[in-house]
């Protein structure tokens, strides 16, 4: 089937505005991750959803960041009152527990966020 999709592909916003980034995981994948890829800083984990369990929000950098996953499928990452340091590529990944428990993660193409 289709891979992980993300929208928009690119987003330019003014400082102080709110933005929503969308991730559509592979159908049937129970786990969903958000990562942030900043220039010169590599990738960092933001948040993890697994089925109906409470999400692991330990990677969110501030309370301006939040995410939800509706119906165990589509996820939205919201950044409120955007700052210039929020400029980055936001990657979403999903995974399905296979019989070996290897939890392979499949990535979307990312959303490039630019805050001006």
């Amino acid at each position, binding site marked *: 089937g289709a891979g992980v999709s993300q929208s928009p592909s690119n987003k330019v916003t003014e400082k102080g505005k709110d933005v929503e980034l969308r991730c559509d995981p592979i159908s049937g994948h129970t786990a969903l*991750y958000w*990562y942030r890829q900043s220039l010169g800083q*590599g*990738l960092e*984990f933001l948040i993890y959803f697994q089925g109906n*369990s409470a999400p*692991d929000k330990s990677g969110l950098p501030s309370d301006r960041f939040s995410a939800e996953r509706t119906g165990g499928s589509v996820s939205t990452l919201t950044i409120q009152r955007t700052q210039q340091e929020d400029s980055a590529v936001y990657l979403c990944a999903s995974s399905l527990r296979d019989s070996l428990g290897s939890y*392979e993660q499949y*990535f979307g193409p990312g959303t490039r966020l630019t805050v001006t």
Partner: protein
Amino acid sequence: AQTVTQSQPEMSVQEAETVTLSCTYDTSESDYYLFWYKQPPSRQMILVIRQEAYKQQNATENRFSVNFQKAAKSFSLKISDSQLGDAAMYFCAYRSGLNAGNNRKLIWGLGTSLAVNP
């Protein structure tokens, strides 16, 4: 906490030659997985190869192979017969195993930019 270090920000190789990308990691866990991902300009993160820590045999996927040295905590990637399409950012990543709970987040190195010269 686990860390991943890639000490080569940039590498280059001639087409058809072999190149090795370095990765070291630090962990106190005994059960974990290691990965090499490729990210071309399209931004799509593509899994190149995976190694389970409990396996002594080095993983191989066609022209890609790893040298996994568990005691030294080293996990290098060898690309043989390099092709122009191999040009990309390569990331080394670590993930805890089954005993670490449900969050299978990946911990990443900073990446190595590989150029392939014709």
